[in-house]
């Protein structure tokens, strides 16, 4: 059996990974919930955030500006994507929406590969993130703790936006019934653009804040895309609380399993999803009968 300190440190690791997955999945799930589009380019937007941040860092040398650069970069790509292509897909079958966002994801990824090459770009840990903190018997790199804080702040901001603002109320109403919202005289298409932008920006933010501890490559978003699918299947598609809880659960599963057998950590994540599908197909927070 693993020792208590190891267990606790893995638990903490799981929370760090989990919150990140929560944030990425929250972006995916509010887009799906509001627009009804499953965005398979979400992983590519994550990657765009990392690259845009990398460029901002090259120019300015400031990681804080890089974070904003990453957010703005993925926001712009997201807005263009919605205006030019995705908005023509709202009335089309879900299969077409999946296919086109999958295609857009490939186009974005390949454009980045063509411009930056396939070799990973270095995003160094900012000076204020260097070093290690001792937390009781637990040693933890500073930047990872700061990253957790960043992600938690972003999640809180999303929460406040969704639950404490007029826009959030409209978005949540749109998740329930976008047709009705439209009939009440609110231009849902403008809201859709806004939500798509927010979702894209969320992915970009996650991309840049994780880039110091990841290899920044054109394909870096793929693994996060797949994991965020698992998260929202676990949490229930379209549910914001589901994305948060699902993300933390997923993070803990991966982290705690790797304590016993690293080889099975990812496999276990999918196995849990399969079991959940068998007993509760709509996910933890999903509403039965809603597709």
């Amino acid at each position, binding site marked *: 059996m693993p020792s208590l300190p190891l267990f606790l440190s893995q638990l903490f690791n799981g929370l760090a990974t989990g919150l990140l997955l929560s944030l990425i999945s929250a972006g995916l799930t509010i887009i*799906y919930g509001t627009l009804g589009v*499953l965005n398979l380019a979400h992983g590519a937007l994550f990657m765009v955030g990392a690259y845009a941040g990398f460029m901002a860092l090259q120019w300015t040398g400031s990681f804080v500006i890089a974070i904003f650069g990453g957010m703005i970069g993925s926001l712009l790509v997201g807005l263009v994507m919605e205006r030019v*292509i995705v908005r*023509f897909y709202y009335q089309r079958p*879900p*299969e*077409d*929406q*999946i*296919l*086109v966002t*999958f*295609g*857009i994801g*490939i*186009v974005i990824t*390949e*454009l980045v*590969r*063509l411009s930056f090459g396939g070799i990973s770009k270095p995003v160094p840990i900012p000076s204020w993130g260097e070093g290690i903190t001792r937390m009781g018997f637990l040693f933890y790199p500073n930047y990872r703790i700061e990253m957790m804080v960043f992600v938690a702040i972003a999640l809180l901001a999303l929460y406040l936006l969704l639950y404490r603002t007029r826009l959030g109320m409209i978005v949540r109403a749109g998740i329930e019934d976008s047709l009705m919202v439209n009939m009440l005289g609110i231009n849902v298409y403008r809201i859709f653009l806004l939500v798509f932008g927010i979702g894209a920006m969320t992915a970009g933010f996650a991309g840049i804040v994780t880039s110091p501890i990841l290899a920044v490559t054109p394909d870096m978003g*793929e693994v996060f895309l*797949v994991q965020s*699918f*698992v998260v*929202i*299947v676990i949490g229930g*598609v379209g549910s914001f609380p589901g994305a948060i809880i699902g993300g933390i659960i997923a993070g803990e599963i991966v982290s705690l399993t790797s304590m016993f057998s*690293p*080889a*099975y950590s*990812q*496999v276990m994540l*999918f*196995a849990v*999803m*399969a079991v959940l*599908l*068998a007993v509760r*197909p709509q996910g933890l927070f999903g509403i039965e009968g809603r*597709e």
Partner: protein
Amino acid sequence: MMLQRLSRYSGGRPWVAELITLIVLLLCPVVLPLVGISADIASRILIWGLFGLGFDILFGYTGLLSFGQAAFFGTGGFVSAFLLTQTGIHGVFLALMIGMLVAMAAGVVVGFFTLRRSGIYFAMITLAFAEMFHFLELSPLSAWTGGENGLTGVPMPIVGFDSWHFQISSGWTLYGYIAAFFLVGYIVAHRIVLSPFGQVLTALRDNTPRALATGHSVRKYKLTAFVIAAGYAGVAGGLLGVLQSYMPPDAVAFHTSGQLVMQSIIGGAGTLFGPLVGAALWLGMQDFLQDIPFIAEAWMLILGIVFVILITAFRQGILGAVKQLVMKTEPATAPHATELSAEISRRTHIKGVPDEHPNQDNIPDHFFRTDTPTTKPDLLIVPKSSTSEGIALACRNLTKHYGGIYANEGITLSIPEGQLRGIIGPNGAGKSTFFKMLAGEVVPTEGQIFLHGADITGLGVTAVSQLGMSKSYQINELFSKLTVEQNLAIPVLARLRGEFRTDMLKSLNQVPGLRQQIEATLDLVNLDQRADIPVTELAYGEKRRLEIGLALASAPNVLLLDEPLAGMSPRERADTVQLLKRIRAGRTLIVVEHDMDAMFELAEYISVLQEGRLLAEGTPEEIKNDKRVQDAYLGGIEEA
């Protein structure tokens, strides 16, 4: 190109397309070297084409978009490669077949989980499962699969028996070996899509709830299609290992599934050859253009852009566009079509009774018939089951709650055989919920339903339909991409074949009674001249009649009609009332309707629902004069 025509129940000549395929495959080794395409590229294209045959059955024909086919491609590939390199098995064919079976078994397991959801969930979950297979391959199973290194040294096949045998070597002989697999795979897939089984697949692609309601076990059909696709993927994966003498780990990776999806869309889904065409473009052009510096690097980008444009503007893909072009330029010259139209004109001539109504609605006169035609081929009616004692349908204390809302409360009624029962009630009286419970679409909170004396509570809509009770819907639920007669074939197939049958290699005209029942229904709902028309081109009134036809074609002895007159013009109403009168014989009819005049004319007995409860029952005359009914409709105060 001829799929649309051949897939009709008329039969046709499936072997023509198969023969052409054989000839093209034979010509490839002669022609392709001339344009600079090597045996290796041609073999690779065929492997992707074979992989795509299964995927097209799953996606193009059944409508299930899987992003996880790499799981089965990899399973088949690694199982065969493992058998050939690590065990005593040296027969390549045997190893491929075992690989296929294991892939199919994996398909059963994965299908069990993934098919619990549809639409976007299905896409996400298949993708997730494929990633799980990828991780399994890379690490936990690396002792068998070689992990990141894959498996090397997959041998070349030997064809023949003991003394006479032939060692296949790489190049065009290996192409021949793979082409043989492709040809057999194509013939099987082609027969599947033309079979009754294949027809049901297209029906559940177009309208799953209706396919379910006409009496097909959608789950079993979907799972079977999923397993078929897994089998194709398994063989294709095995052949990839043979072709390369090496089984690569990235065969299980996400981009393998993605490439398959993209090739299928580019080539055209629902055409069987689409994925092959897509693969030819992808791999052939790549090979052709790889010496041009920029193009080679940007090839994936170009394909991505092409893919997005195709999805947006030419959803049917290259082959789909070609098919459309051919169909447009080629009028109904097919032997069957002329034969059928001759038949139609003969029949209309007999039935062409002068129209008594003036034509007010801009609808051709012949759609209104006032005669009672001598129904030539008789419409089937399922024999009644068990001990009915003269009661066709009964319910006891039927109740449905949605949370705190009581849609129906304690409804008890019984309907004798052969009666035409009307159900009326103001809006919100709970008529639709009541009907859904009777048809098995909604499970009651409390109470029981008996069909001919047998308890059918909670059996579900498919089983109820198989027992001989079917329903037509208030809002048309048609199979939108099929023609009128293909639509009608779906309920008939459920009646003649039961809820599930794997008659994949049979043709449609080997189903006895199918044609007669379709003709009889067409005749009854007066759509015999529109048999070949896609339903999207029908007028509203015609769609309405087809909707009733779908319920009739499954040969029910108890027929539920939910507002059959909804949205019709007065002329169409009169015509539909006549239709209802015609179909009464031998059936019990239960009709929900708002049109009081029609109801009082038609129904023998009427039940009135109000606020979820049974308010009154009686003959039309009694109901007309019932004080409570008048109050309910005219807004009298109940408690007064």
